[in-house]
């Protein structure tokens, strides 16, 4: 009976005409392709929105407004005793320099041929509070210039910078006590006169963090060094330990319940949230071992713990991928097991190991959560380290921690810098991942 019913259902079917079922199957496939393409399209759109937002918000941080001012380094203000003694000159604090800056700002407005009713205090208010620090630093390092008139390019105040970048408008400053409309009018005139100019902001990439009162002076350079030192610690510790552990586990260790447990635990460790490693770091490295807080060494140690599982897993995978025939051949010609591993297996697995390491490092580079707990977030990245020991031990921040810190601060100008920092961080991450891809492409062998 069943046979007849089958033949009857096939009757009338043609190769040229699709049956109901085939049509349904084809439709299902077309639908599935559609879903897949939509998923990819959504992903791409999201990525584009992300990249667009980051770039459009952050690109402003790479430009900064400068004011060119001629400052007369008055000897009676800076060196009251007139003996050019450096210790005496150093006694004049940055507050003692503000009269010079006020006078200089006023004369530069006069020289530009602009008439204004603003007081010298308001004119000098267009300059960053960093100006006095720049000036003092210059005088302390060039004490013989006292008495001369020197041309400086000072940073402009963050509101002025924001005005030239379109972030600050005349409407938005209605209640702002940091700047007035009259000051903005003066800015317009000074821009026409060429006194105020926007140019590339090298200090953002190489400078140190600045306090809340002068966002225009903040840079990511010192925290970049902090990240660099941490990555150094991670590389120096995690790579040898990780590779040694995986070689032993893969090549030498007997297969028993103990190694099984270790294996499972390593896989689990890779999934542990990074904040857990931060708490561990606080408890072990700082509270128990008494390592200094906020030090990149501690940050590096914590990130090493975090990166180890990634490196071990990828190393073991690439060791596994080396065919046993290579080991057998080496052993066959009389090599010891260790020689077989180090002379033949390891070099062949190296590209995979390096790729895994770089990806692990890139992960560690972008990590903020564990750094919160070991004191690397705050106003920290202010002193550039002067050597290996101070780089590892004196307090520093890291790039993602610095970005987080900027995003928290009150002045909107810091927000722009946070996005700018993200661009720099992304450039680092993309570079590292590209290197990993290139290594894999060029050196990986398939059997």
């Amino acid at each position, binding site marked *: 009976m069943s046979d007849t019913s089958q033949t009857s259902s096939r009757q009338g079917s043609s190769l040229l005409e699709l049956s109901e079922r085939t049509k349904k199957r084809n439709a299902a496939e077309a639908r599935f392709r559609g879903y897949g393409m939509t998923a990819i399209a959504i992903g791409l759109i999201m990525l584009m929105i992300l990249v667009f937002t980051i770039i459009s918000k952050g690109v402003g941080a790479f430009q900064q407004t400068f004011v060119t001012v001629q400052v007369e380094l008055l000897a009676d203000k800076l060196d009251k005793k007139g003996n050019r003694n450096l210790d005496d000159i150093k006694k004049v604090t940055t507050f003692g320099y503000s009269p010079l800056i006020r006078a200089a700002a006023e004369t530069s407005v006069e020289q530009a041929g602009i008439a204004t009713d603003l007081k010298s205090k308001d004119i000098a208010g267009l300059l960053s509070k960093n100006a006095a620090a720049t000036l003092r630093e210059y005088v302390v390092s060039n004490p013989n210039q006292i008495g001369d008139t020197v041309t400086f390019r000072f940073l402009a105040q963050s509101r002025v910078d924001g005005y030239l970048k379109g972030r600050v408008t005349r409407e938005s400053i209605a209640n702002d006590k940091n700047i007035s409309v009259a000051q903005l009018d003066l800015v317009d005139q000074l821009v026409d006169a060429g006194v105020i100019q926007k140019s590339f902001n090298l200090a953002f990439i190489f400078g140190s963090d600045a306090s809340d009162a002068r966002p225009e002076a903040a840079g990511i350079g010192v925290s970049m060094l902090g990240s660099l030192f941490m990555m150094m610690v991670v590389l120096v510790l995690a790579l040898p330990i990780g590779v040694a552990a995986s070689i032993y586990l893969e090549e030498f260790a007997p297969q028993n319940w103990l190694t099984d447990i270790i294996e499972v635990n390593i896989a689990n460790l890779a999934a542990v949230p990074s904040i857990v490693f931060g708490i561990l770091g606080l408890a072990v490295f700082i509270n128990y071992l008494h390592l200094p807080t906020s*030090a990149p060494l501690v940050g590096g*140690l914590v990130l090493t713990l975090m990166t180890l599982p990634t490196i071990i897993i990828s190393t073991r995978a690439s060791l596994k991928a080396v065919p046993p025939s290579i080991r057998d051949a080496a052993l066959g010609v009389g090599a010891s097991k260790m020689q077989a591993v180090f002379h033949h297996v390891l070099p062949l697995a190296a590209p995979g190991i390096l790729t895994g390491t770089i990806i692990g490092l890139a992960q560690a580079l972008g990590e903020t959560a564990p750094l919160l707990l070991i004191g690397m977030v*705050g106003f920290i990245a202010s002193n550039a380290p002067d050597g290996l020991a101070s780089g590892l031990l004196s307090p520093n921040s890291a790039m993602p921690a610095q970005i987080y810190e900027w995003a928290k601060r009150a002045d909107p100008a810091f927000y722009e810098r946070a996005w700018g920092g993200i661009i720099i961080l992304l450039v680092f991450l993309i570079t590292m991942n590209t290197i990993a891809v290139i290594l894999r492409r060029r050196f990986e062998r398939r059997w």
Partner: protein
Amino acid sequence: MSFVKLTASTLAIAAVSATAATARDQVQVAGSSTVLPYASIVAEAFGENFDFPTPVVESGGSSAGLKRFCEGVGENTIDIANASRAIREKEIKACAEAGVTDIIEVRIGYDGIVFASDINGNSFEFTPIDWYKALSAEIVVDGKVVANPNKTWADVNPAFPAQPIQAFVPGTKHGTREVFEDKVILAGCEETGDFEVFKHANGDDKKAAEKACISLRNDGLSVDIDGDYTETLARIDSNKDGIGVFGLAFYENNTDKLQVATMSGVVPTTESISTGEYSVSRPLFFYVKKAHIGVIPGLKEFAEFFVVDEVAGPDGPLAEYGLVSDPELEKVQETVSTEATMGDNS
């Protein structure tokens, strides 16, 4: 073999650097995120004007900072704790147990707490009673204690627009929260007379009545913000009905997005706070570990520099940023220069 050697030498380097970690040459500060901007401004100026390295300032909240401060004496503990409230008895005790006995309390000035909402929204003229009625978990209606029934600001005070109540208040780890509870919610509670009702209902227990006043509603109309003011600002940005609690300095940096509400008819400014007209303000402190003076280079110089007239005075950079300078600054300067500890004061 090379890997083994590399690992061994790495560990050796790590060990050597760890032993080199004994001498710390910069001041370490942690604590209140309200004090952080001021501390960082001073730290920066200190680094510029002295030959000492710039001090390190971490945030995390007054309580967290004082907890770290009280961990003990030694180079791996912090030297200064910033706080947006006075240190508590409990904390002094905890400090003493860990060996931190001589603490110098330094008041740097006053900070206003302001209520601000989206710049394009309704403007408000609050009194403490309004906030108490809007946010307390239980209020008294017709002589009976009931769960807070108010849903819109018009329910609280007929003079207000019928805007849904949505408040973003600082979380409990912030020193700001304590001031908000004391000077706004509790003040409102007492002013309405509800305090007496609560006291009566709790068997004349003042503490329980206070607690009943200041426990905020948890039906989603009052949201605790554990992060910083930027988070509060972001919440108001996405919810235009929201009203947030900010520090004066933060508001003054974001006047393009926020409008400030008056409290009892007074607009918060540094002037109205320094005269005491604007009531919701609190002193800001930092606490110095006396045992570290002379051990950590620059600690005393930093503490002194923090309160000199040029920095903390009415024309200094701190006042410019939004701090209301202390009218008794001279006394504070004396405290720091004589290293008078808290025990000596009382």
